[in-house]
């Protein structure tokens, strides 16, 4: 798999995601500085990592969404190339309008770092085919602004077209207000673009790839990507 991880000033989980990609595919991804205008030739997957790009000042992801490299990421996505945005990466994708909606401050107004169950909503995508339909995975969240919201039309479109990737849930896969850790509309933790080649998600699968460090439920995502690329 040829993966590229874009690093912005203030990114801070780029090493974590690079490690997860390498673990799954055996190949270290290219690290691409935001000021570049092109992705490395032959890039299959672009990853926008977690962190606090530009300090999350103004709005999270806003300044990074306007950096040089994002034009190349847009073009890559338009060609059907795979794009994954995790946490700050998701925020950047929304600000860049590669995904609809916006991530507002958590409803409890606090940064929250904790384990959280997610329900995998579909498994026919490049990102999730290694999971089982409806599988409940245990990953972690670490964000202050993960409260996804969009106007009613956009929400309806996302739901109708089955573009919800993950929802916050309990250990049995039940979605309820109690398991909605940040106030997101319909407990949405991650969404796809219309062609399902772009995924944005708040939780951090890259920090759950190791039995010794909390568990391995994040691996499925990277293994899905790695096998798809290898094919």
């Amino acid at each position, binding site marked *: 798999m040829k993966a590229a991880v874009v690093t912005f*000033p*203030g990114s801070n989980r780029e*090493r974590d995601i690079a490690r997860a990609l390498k673990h799954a595919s055996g190949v270290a991804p290219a690290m691409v500085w935001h000021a570049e205008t092109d992705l490395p030739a032959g890039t299959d997957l672009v990853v926008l990592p977690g962190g606090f790009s530009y300090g999350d000042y103004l709005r999270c992801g806003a300044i990074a969404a306007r950096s040089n490299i994002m034009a190349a990421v847009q073009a890559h996505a338009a060609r059907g190339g795979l794009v994954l945005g995790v946490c700050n990466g998701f925020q950047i994708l929304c600000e860049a309008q590669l995904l609809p909606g916006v991530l507002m401050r958590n409803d409890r107004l606090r*940064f929250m*770092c904790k384990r959280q169950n997610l329900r995998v909503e579909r498994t026919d995508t490049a990102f999730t085919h290694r999971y089982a339909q409806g599988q409940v995975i245990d990953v972690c969240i*670490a964000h202050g602004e993960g409260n996804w919201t969009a106007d009613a039309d956009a929400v309806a479109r996302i739901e109708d077209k089955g573009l919800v990737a993950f929802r916050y849930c309990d250990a049995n896969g039940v979605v309820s207000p109690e398991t909605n850790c940040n106030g997101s509309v319909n407990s949405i933790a991650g969404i796809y673009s219309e062609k399902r080649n772009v995924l944005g998600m708040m939780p951090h699968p890259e920090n759950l790839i190791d039995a*010794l*460090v909390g568990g391995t439920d994040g691996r499925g995502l990277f293994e899905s990507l790695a096998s798809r690329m290898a094919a």
Partner: protein
Amino acid sequence: MTATAPRITPELVAEHGLKPDEYARFLELIGREPTITELGIVSAMWNEHCSYKSSRLHLKGLPTSAPWVIQGPGENAGVIDIGDGDAIAFKMESHNHPSYIEPYQGATTGVGGILRDVFTMGARPIAALNALRFGSPDHPKTRHLVSGVVAGIGGYGNSFGVPTVGGSVGFHTRYDGNILVNAMAVGLAKTDGIFYAAAAGVGNPIVYLGSKTGRDGIHGATMASAEFDANSDEKRPTVQVGDPFAEKLLLEACLELMQTDSVIAIQDMGAAGLTCSAVEMGAKGNLGVELILDNVPCREEGMSAYEMMLSESQERMLMVLKPEKREEAEAIFRKWGLDFAVVGYTTDTLRFVVKHHGETVADLPIKELGDEAPLYDRPHISNAFQPTIDPASVAAPVDNATALARLLATPDMCSKRWVWEQYDHLILGNTVQKPGGDAAIVRIEDGPKGVALTTDVTPRYCEADPVQGGRQAVAEAWRNITAVGGLPLAITDNLNFGNPEKPDVMGQFVGCLKGIGEACLALDFPVVSGNVSLYNETQGRSILPTPTIGGVGLLDDVTLHATVALRQAGDVLAVIGDTTGWIGQSVYLRDICGREEGAPPPVDLAVERRNGDFVRGLIRSGKVTTVHDCSDGGLAVAVAEMAMAGDIGVSFDTLPADIPAHAFLFGEDQARYVIAADAATIDAVAAEAKAAGVPFRKLGVAGGDAVNIPGETPAKVADLRNGHDNWLPNYMAGEIDHP
């Protein structure tokens, strides 16, 4: 020198915190009246914070060396060798006074400062910890302070990208007007890639790096050393604002630069900014320094030399650069969008010369600014002797199951999850033991090694008996590291005390240091860095003596570690170490009986070491994986915490007849660990313990859904957890922090 400069009046000297005799000493040193800039410089260098004038004498007695110590006290951070060419740099520092005035920004800048101390040494931060003390929960400001400090610590560390993996939080009315915010940072370096502050070579450029200089915290260092009065809410000094984004850029730029073999010396700008950093670099390298302030990147118009020299703007560094590397270095800083300016050079004059607008605004002997700083042997008296309390003389006001449930839901003993869930404790993907265990465990890169990290102190013990309290703080840090399977290697200390000009406070300081030193020596646990914070006092009332200990230990293989959670029904629990039912200064006596008194539990360092080495052996051989050290709240609380973590009940065996039940359950004898394993393993451990002369006693068996104390109503684990988990969120409910 400048004609328009203000006259140096005795009032002005006093405002700078210099005592008349200190000023006289300075006059003698320079042989003329100083300029205002010089007065500012000396006031910064000679205040308590920079000169350690009250504490230096006593700090000298601490053990600071061991074969694995690469750098002891005296640099930005201490450094220890953890094998395979890897080193750990770490230090702890306080930001108490600023955090009381502006909790969010005070805490952020505290965290930022300590992270800089660590990466200045060439180490990439891999973990942060903190130790917090707040006033009584009933005090009107407490909630706001908790909310702001916790948000600030998280706000900075989360954005910077370091996992905050441990710490401690306590409440006591003696911190009402003077909270404690102690922050610790831990970084990973290569033993051959460590950077120091001593300048070298004459005529080398001195480079300013990072953010611009503003009028932030001018006289912050002086403020930190002046006793608070009732008006401090009104003082409204220029508060420093933390910028974790700039710090992250500074980290990456510094580490990138350090790869290029261009750095001769590097020093962060902390308290008293440019003054302290420039003087220290020169003095340590036996060189003079000349600064040209016209080149200092400023954020505000018309800043005077005085202001630039005393500004405490954050996220700045000073560096001595190899002249031929200037362009390469500058390109790196520009890439990261940071300021880079040559602001002076090293000289062979041993003078500290500062120029601004073509004028010399300061010209001082550089070594003497440090070496000739006042040094005090302040009078000290040891505290009144507290009697040992006979456990039989203390009646139990409630049954033990009720006392247990109550204790678990007190401000000091409740779960601190509400706090650490606001800290990103998982970033970097190496947190093997997250907050909530005994010590945190952070794996070193892909393993198998890891470090065990903790911060500890029991202020009420220190107040009751400073020497025992000092010993206990070190012993507890050592024990927490041991309880996860780590070999304790070294500590950093953060000595928070009241006004040293009061002989009883000075007595606490001297006593605690004596105890710390004894414990470090006996446990092979030297001090490699630290910080002193004095004058923690409001309206004449001092805080509890609080010498926070930050401990670092090593696990050769992180897969062999222990956690507190009970694993399965049928496992047998046992305590390693002797239980006498020591009730004096226990939280039971304080929170259940309403008596804050008595002598604290004595710390026998030889026993401490023997018991700990035994337990560590059990973990390292893979025999035992469930261990919890026994501290506040004694056996009952330790066992209940293990039950809550594992979601399994425990039935206590018949309690011993020779100790009152409540003293057995809640007494705080030291050097103890509760372990759990299957029955056969526990029997084998019993035999080993006997052979090794280590006290061992079976406590009970895991199973069911309640903690059962013989003859009492079972306490459901779920109910205990409810009280334990909810005290803090309930207390904080409704408070929103709004930085």
